[in-house]
């Protein structure tokens, strides 16, 4: 293949996805689509009580079925080294910490038999009373030392109480969010094969290196004895960020039976075993002067975790970043309940926290009779409020102004409930968005093939972000060659180790290593270079690094049915350098769509009596469908931030979901004049409220 010598614009162009044609023609294989010869199938058995111990397992009827191979329980499953993440210590003890916890695994010649076996296994329990409902005054609430992401649980700068007392304008409101489920379209799956002491697993994961490390630790193997492949991954949104149950179950069953084993989780199991966004009850107290300057801000988050792990959704953290106040208090209280373990879901912390903060800012703007865009512009801080660190760059004002201009915001009449079109009340709303810039050390290698082409190897994971394509662009740019001259391998733990796809940090972390390897190869003129960016990442200076954005929305609310439809949606983002316009736009749009779901359709609840989630599958848990989503307009402000990383991106995977829910909720207020402080804004809630107003 001829390698074009021009490199003009390789980085930043809208290069199509490298695996695109494989995906549209169905040849891209995902974790459950590798069927080695003699492959067996396993189906997990989920606990049917909310708390207790397994007292007995009767597997005789299950094992009598034709084609049955084994039933694994805590009594006979291979013993595993204790993992750091206790949710993965599966079938090692009789304890049942929550409904849906796996208590057995049926293995059979066929999928149908494994499934029937799982229904046939009789598990009896010593049941204990359970406690699953989060309430603002729950007696088990405590202040955790840390919230997710290494954020301190509680912080205070200045004197909130004094500032609050003195503030001439105050609002004190509470917002409530239900649990939310990631529900990637590919259910979590793994296929495991043991061959001569070597374990190979095809896993549906956002990072194969951590999975390989876990398996090596659990089975007491050298890492070279484990290969984990995650070539194509059908979405994750955080729920495949760290290892999950299928790879542990499949590897145990394969070890036990001496056969390759495939485990694909049933959709209805996912809410219980892959993590969820924890519910939050957020009290916001905002105090301001006449000119809109915030003087007092208290963001108090109440949430739950499980008894298995402590995971604290860091929803108060964005209030440490966005606006600040003389008296700034932010904190978390958490109760460890008998619930499934919460974990990462797209923009943990920022997504729920910015819903509360940005709705509260809208309420404050109404109180002050000030334009909500103007209120935000007046409160953009010079330094990060909580840490006092300088910002590496700050694009919020530019996003607000550009968004307002493109949306036609200046024509807006601020009075609520004044525009009607037939049965529809129309309204517009806006909100800011933010997400931190994260980066982790990575390794990568680059090899000159001697014919003008290059081979780049790195265990990055492409969960739909376009990582393969973008990293090839980074490599071509650093090597000074055309895109066609670069071959790139990702998605296997046998490749140079790399961090997972999460925290919007993939492109920055992997791109840095790819850039460094290619640069060094080009400068040395050698044939192969392997690099590690640990020293570079550690040498970064102390800056507050954040991406920002602004979202503008128009809604129509049907006064008869209470249905809210988004008519227009615009997002403007400042996220450093955009490396691929095509895949970046898709990620922003995808994030905003998930934000639309959070605002209007997605809802989950705990069954107080039975102790499990009520909304288990896609019939009960409503993710947005095609007709729910309008055309979405996305723009970005190019930033040249010298304090980032050599590729210059701030990360784009998560910021789209941040801000969108508040913008929609604020638009619904503008349309109806009613402030609903609980999501999602479903017809029953919105319609009831409108009916009440009419009566």
């Amino acid at each position, binding site marked *: 293949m001829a390698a074009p010598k021009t490199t003009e614009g390789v980085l930043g162009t809208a290069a*199509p*996805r490298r*695996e*695109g*044609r*494989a*995906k*549209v*023609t*169905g*040849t*891209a*294989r*995902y974790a*459950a*689509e590798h*069927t080695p010869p003699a492959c067996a199938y396993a189906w997990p058995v989920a606990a049917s009580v909310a708390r207790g111990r397994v007292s007995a397992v009767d597997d005789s009827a299950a094992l009598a079925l034709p084609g049955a191979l084994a039933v694994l329980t805590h009594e006979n499953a291979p013993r595993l080294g204790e993992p750091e993440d206790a949710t993965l210590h599966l079938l090692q003890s009789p304890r049942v910490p929550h409904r849906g916890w796996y208590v057995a695994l049926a293995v059979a010649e*066929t*999928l*149908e*038999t494994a499934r029937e076996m799982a229904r046939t296994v009789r598990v009896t329990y010593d049941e204990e009373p359970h406690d699953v409902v989060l309430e603002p005054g729950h007696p088990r609430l405590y202040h955790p030392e840390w919230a997710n992401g290494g954020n301190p649980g509680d912080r205070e700068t200045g004197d909130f109480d004094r500032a609050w007392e003195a503030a001439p304008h105050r609002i004190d409101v509470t917002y409530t969010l239900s649990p939310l489920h990631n*529900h*990637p*379209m*590919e*259910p979590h799956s793994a296929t495991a094969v043991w061959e001569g002491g070597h374990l190979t697993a095809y896993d549906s994961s956002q990072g194969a290196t951590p999975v390989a490390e876990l398996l090596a630790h659990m089975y007491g193997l050298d890492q070279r004895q484990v290969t984990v492949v995650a070539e*194509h*991954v*059908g*979405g994750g*949104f955080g729920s495949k960020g760290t290892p999950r149950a299928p790879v542990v179950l499949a590897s145990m069953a394969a070890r036990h039976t001496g056969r390759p084993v495939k485990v*694909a989780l*049933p*959709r209805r199991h996912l809410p219980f075993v892959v993590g969820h966004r924890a519910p939050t009850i957020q009290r916001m107290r905002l105090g301001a002067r006449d000119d809109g300057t915030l003087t007092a801000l208290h963001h108090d988050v109440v949430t739950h975790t499980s008894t298995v792990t402590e995971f604290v959704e860091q929803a108060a953290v964005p209030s440490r970043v966005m606006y600040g106040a003389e008296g700034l208090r932010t904190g978390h209280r958490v109760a460890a309940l008998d619930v499934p373990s919460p974990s990462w879901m797209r923009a943990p912390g920022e997504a729920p926290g910015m819903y509360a903060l940005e709705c509260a800012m809208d309420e404050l703007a109404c109180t002050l009779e000030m334009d909500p865009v103007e209120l935000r512009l007046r409160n953009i801080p010079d330094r990060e409020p909580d840490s006092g660190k300088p910002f590496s760059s700050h694009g919020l004002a530019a996003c607000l102004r550009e968004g307002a201009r493109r949306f036609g915001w200046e024509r807006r009449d601020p009075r609520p409930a004044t525009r009607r079109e037939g049965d529809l009340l129309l309204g517009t709303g806006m909100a800011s968005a933010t997400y931190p810039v994260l980066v982790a050390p990575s390794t990568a290698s680059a090899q000159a093939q001697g014919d003008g082409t290059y081979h780049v190897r790195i265990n990055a994971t492409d*969960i*739909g972000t*376009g990582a393969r394509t973008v990293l090839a662009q980074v490599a071509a740019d650093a090597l000074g060659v055309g895109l066609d001259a670069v071959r790139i391998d990702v998605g296997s733990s046998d490749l140079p180790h790399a961090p997972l796809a999460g925290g919007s940090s993939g492109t920055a972390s992997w791109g840095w290593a790819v850039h460094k390897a290619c640069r060094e190869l080009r400068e040395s003129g050698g044939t192969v270079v392997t690099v590690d960016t640990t020293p570079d990442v550690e040498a970064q200076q102390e800056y507050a690094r954040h991406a920002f954005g602004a979202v503008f929305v128009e809604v129509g609310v049907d006064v008869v049915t209470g249905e809210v439809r988004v008519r227009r949606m615009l997002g403007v983002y400042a996220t450093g350098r955009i490396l691929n316009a*095509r895949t970046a*736009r*898709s*990620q922003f*749009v*995808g*994030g*905003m*769509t*998930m934000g639309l779901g959070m605002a209007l359709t997605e809802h989950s609840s705990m069954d107080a009596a039975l102790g499990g989630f009520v909304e288990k*599958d*896609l*019939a009960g848990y409503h*993710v*947005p*469908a*095609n*007709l*729910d*989503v*309008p*055309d*979405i307009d996305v723009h970005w402000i190019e930033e040249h931030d010298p304090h980032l990383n050599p590729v210059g991106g701030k990360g784009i995977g998560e910021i789209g979901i941040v801000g969108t829910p508040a913008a929609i909720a604020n638009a619904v207020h503008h349309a109806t004049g009613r402030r609903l402080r609980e999501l999602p804004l479903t017809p029953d809630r919105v319609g009831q409220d409108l009916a009440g107003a009419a009566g």
Partner: protein
Amino acid sequence: MIPQRTATSSTLTLYVNDTAHTVTADHRTTLLDVLREHLDLTGTKKGCDHGQCGACTVLVEGRRANSCLLLAVAHDGAHLTTVEGLGDEGRPHPLQEAFHERDAFQCGYCTPGQIVSGVGMLCEAAEGHPSHVTPREVLERATGAPAELDRDEIRERMSGNICRCGAYPYIVRALEDVRHEVTRADGPARASGGGREVPA
């Protein structure tokens, strides 16, 4: 191949993308699992196994259907088109190419279902089938003429296929790009002329 039937399994022939496959399937096995686990045609995806997501969409006799809801044993002799039958990397179907061009996917897991559903949908529209959002005036005329596909018609007709990555606006554009090009379900029409016998 000697046809067999036991209390729990049957031998049957499926014409998949012009090719006859004879398989012995458990009576509980869905068409989706026959494709994925017996024939290694893994382009058709399993998202929910309960008819809630559309990832498993195939054409059965030219009509789109959720293959997770169909039992294989009830489809002996049926003609199916899967994503693999629409085109391949060297010669993609116009809608496959439009999805690629429009970046109408991210993770790609819903994508084969979207594309097969899109082909089926365009054929339904070409045959004049209305949808839930078709205006009353058009319904009353009932001419049987091809349905006009504006964006809301496409959105409504594609709402049985969930995309958690949120590629909907680009899926709609990809369908707009080819809406006048695709007027019949390619595959089953050809297959009905008699396919090659390939025992599985």
